[in-house]
């Protein structure tokens, strides 16, 4: 992304970054105004929208919140408008605030939701629960991407790693009748794919994008093949694994709304929480993290201070495979037990999108994964209750958002400088 696209800096004394930031604020203001008009003023109906909140146990309705759909849309739209205008004011004074951005986005979303679900019932807690549910593999996948790409190896084989993990854990859990072995073998399967990626990319210097693509095809092929060859005809031995039971974290799971969502989950999800914090800490607060980032941005400089570039990359790619493989276990032992053909269904590519949308940063990737998971779930919830927007267009949203992000129209994403470039001493510069 190094060609003439970058506009030459400073017209009106603003840096390119600041002008881009200003442009995104303009877009935010425009979107808020648009949703206020579109959802809050134009619709003629006078229906109610009902939001249901579950405070304690699942499926027991504790609280309902019925609103006039039109005025709710108007209210949320205006809230978004005020927040984004406030954001502009703060920007003029040189203050960056993520909070106003978040409020504005939430306002736009709620405005849309109140319009789309007019006359309907929205199980709000369920909506969030489902969003987390769909985000888990995305978060694992994008963390795998962070690990590998921050150290300079492009990983588009996330899909393959997830699928390999799902397959291995499902089959092994079924053969051993034990979730423990299923859980243990999933990361190994993921890192086997990583091993191929690492050997071919780092040792042989083959294009990592092509390699990732081919590895995905390979995993699809092998799992599809074995699925039809063994898992279908001999289902009772090969594909009827047990599933993990959710564990309630004492006290925490009783927190209203968030408790049942966050703290009544399987061990995989708790490992994910730990992983998110651990990755963020390790990447920015430890020697390993500093070295990893150095190797990803400027391997020659890293080498010159004695860091073993390729060894570190190799190790990080393997760890990335462990993480994605564990995420794959979520599909089988984490949910239904049984493996089904191509069950990751492109989640690895949405994880890649989340990684890019989140600007290759751990928190950014997690945030993007949550947003994409939410969009996916919102789509299916709205699909069930029936809405004016075709569900296909909502399914497109994460992909379109990622394209907008990489084109730099709103904000700017930049990959680690040496991402995808093999390192050979004396050849790079």
């Amino acid at each position, binding site marked *: *992304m190094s060609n003439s*696209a970058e506009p030459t800096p400073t017209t009106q004394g603003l840096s390119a970054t600041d002008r881009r930031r200003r442009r995104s604020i303009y877009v935010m203001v425009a979107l808020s105004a648009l949703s206020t008009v579109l959802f809050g003023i134009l619709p003629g109906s006078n229906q109610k929208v009902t939001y249901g909140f579950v405070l304690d146990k699942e499926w027991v309705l504790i609280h309902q919140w019925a609103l006039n759909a039109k005025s709710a849309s108007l209210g949320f739209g205006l809230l978004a408008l005020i927040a984004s205008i406030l954001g502009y004011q703060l920007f003029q004074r040189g203050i960056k605030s993520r909070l106003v951005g978040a409020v504005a986005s939430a306002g736009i979303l709620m405005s849309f939701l109140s319009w789309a679900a007019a006359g309907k019932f929205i199980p709000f807690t369920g909506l969030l629960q489902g969003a987390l549910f769909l985000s888990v593999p995305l978060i694992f996948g994008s963390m795998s991407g962070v690990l590998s790409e921050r150290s300079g190896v492009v990983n588009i084989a996330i899909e393959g790693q997830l699928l390999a993990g799902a397959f291995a854990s499902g089959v092994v859990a079924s053969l051993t009748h034990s979730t423990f072995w299923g859980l243990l073998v999933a990361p190994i399967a993921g890192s086997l794919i990583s091993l191929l990626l690492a050997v071919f990319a780092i040792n042989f210097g083959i294009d990592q*994008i092509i390699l990732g693509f*081919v590895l995905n095809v390979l995993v699809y*092929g092998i799992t599809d093949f074995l699925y039809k*060859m063994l898992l279908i005809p001999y289902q009772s031995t090969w594909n009827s694994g047990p599933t993990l039971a959710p564990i309630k974290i004492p006290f925490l799971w009783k927190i209203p709304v968030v408790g049942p969502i966050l703290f009544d989950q399987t061990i995989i999800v708790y490992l994910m929480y730990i992983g998110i914090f651990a990755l963020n800490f390790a990447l920015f607060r430890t020697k390993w993290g500093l070295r990893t980032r150095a190797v990803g941005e400027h391997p020659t400089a890293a080498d010159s201070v004695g860091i073993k570039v390729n060894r570190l990359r190799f190790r990080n790619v393997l760890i990335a495979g462990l993480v994605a493989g564990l995420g794959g276990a979520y599909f089988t032992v984490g949910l239904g037990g049984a493996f089904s053909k191509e069950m990751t269904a492109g989640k690895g590519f949405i994880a890649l999108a989340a990684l890019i949308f989140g600007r290759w940063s751990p928190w950014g990737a997690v945030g993007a994964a949550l947003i994409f998971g939410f969009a996916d779930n919102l789509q299916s919830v709205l699909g069930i209750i029936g809405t004016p927007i075709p569900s296909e267009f909502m399914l497109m949203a994460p992909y379109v958002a990622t394209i907008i992000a*990489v084109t730099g129209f709103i904000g700017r994403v930049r*990959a680690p400088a040496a*991402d*995808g470039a093999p390192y050979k001493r004396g050849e790079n510069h």
Partner: protein
Amino acid sequence: MRKPQLSSLRALKLPVLAFLLAMFAGALLIAFSDAPSLKKIGHPWQFIKSASAAAGHAYFALFQGAIYDHTLATPHNPWLAFYPLSETLVAAAPLILAGLSVALAFRAGLFNIGAQGQFIFGSIAASYIGFHFHLPIGVHVILAVIAAIVAGAIWGGLVGLLKARTGAHEVIVTIMLNYVALYFLMWVLGTTTFLRPGRKDPIAPDVATSARMPHLAGDNFRVNFGIFIALAAAVFVWWLLSRSTWGFRFRAVGANTAAAKTAGISVPFVMTAAMVISGALAGLGGAVHVLGSDFSLSGGSAGNFGFDAVTVALLGRAQPMGTVIASILFGALRAGGSTMQANTTTPIDIVLVIQALVVLFIAAPSVVRFVFRLKNVKTGGELVAKGWNG
């Protein structure tokens, strides 16, 4: 005359060996997942006999389904035994076009994973013109093909334009656009225009007979004019790349963007133009598929053509001729795979494994070199890594 022949033979050595190796690995996979054989694993000799029989049967059925099946011949039409060969060419035609799309972009330094999306848009356009209008024979099919080319060119050109104007990496953009295209197809199939009368499932009406590609060998065989279109496109791409000024510019940008820029070549223009042509080829592939053999657009119409196209282009070393040969080979595997799945216990998905392994071995000649104890195998320089910032 002798020398160039020798060198082109040597260029074939690696792909052929890679293919053999992949077939062998596939056989091992079949052998070790054959449940009746696995039961005999305590008796090694019996296991080997039974497992190799399983693999042998599978590959024999694969061959039968791809080239020649004597059981299909009837007393008054022995030619029917070649029905599988016709099926191979039917599968190969769209694949050649999609493969050329990827190969052309490759030569201009762009990795077009988006052939799938461009293929989908081509199919949608061809199908729409094909079933919605009533036009004279000849005019109809030409219009449908042109529509598909334009649709594919727009969808591909968008990628080139974004890359040229903003630097957005084409791989990221095309992966995302493939999904957008897929969901667009799903949506389009649900609209009243595309819904087949009397049906509720997402399947478009059959294209009119006036919009179909003419059969080449009578109505018993599905092989159609599409294969000629594909071969003509291969000649065109060959001419474009190695005989035209544009092609020279494409290759210059592909080889070294900075040098090309210094030499006065407009890199943004080349990127956009290459992606427009690339998209047009994939869109044409969609047309050949829909108008030649599929006739009715459905959610799975585009199948895996766009993704197989990438493996085909890689196996063919991004050369037009190589892509054609690789496409026919993979077309044969696809056609044979269906027969194999029907007649034996081996599922068609083994084809995907073989495909992936071939490309992996091609990409890493060291593996092939090691297995066959070769000293010097000609390796292509097309697979040099560039990454997100390249």
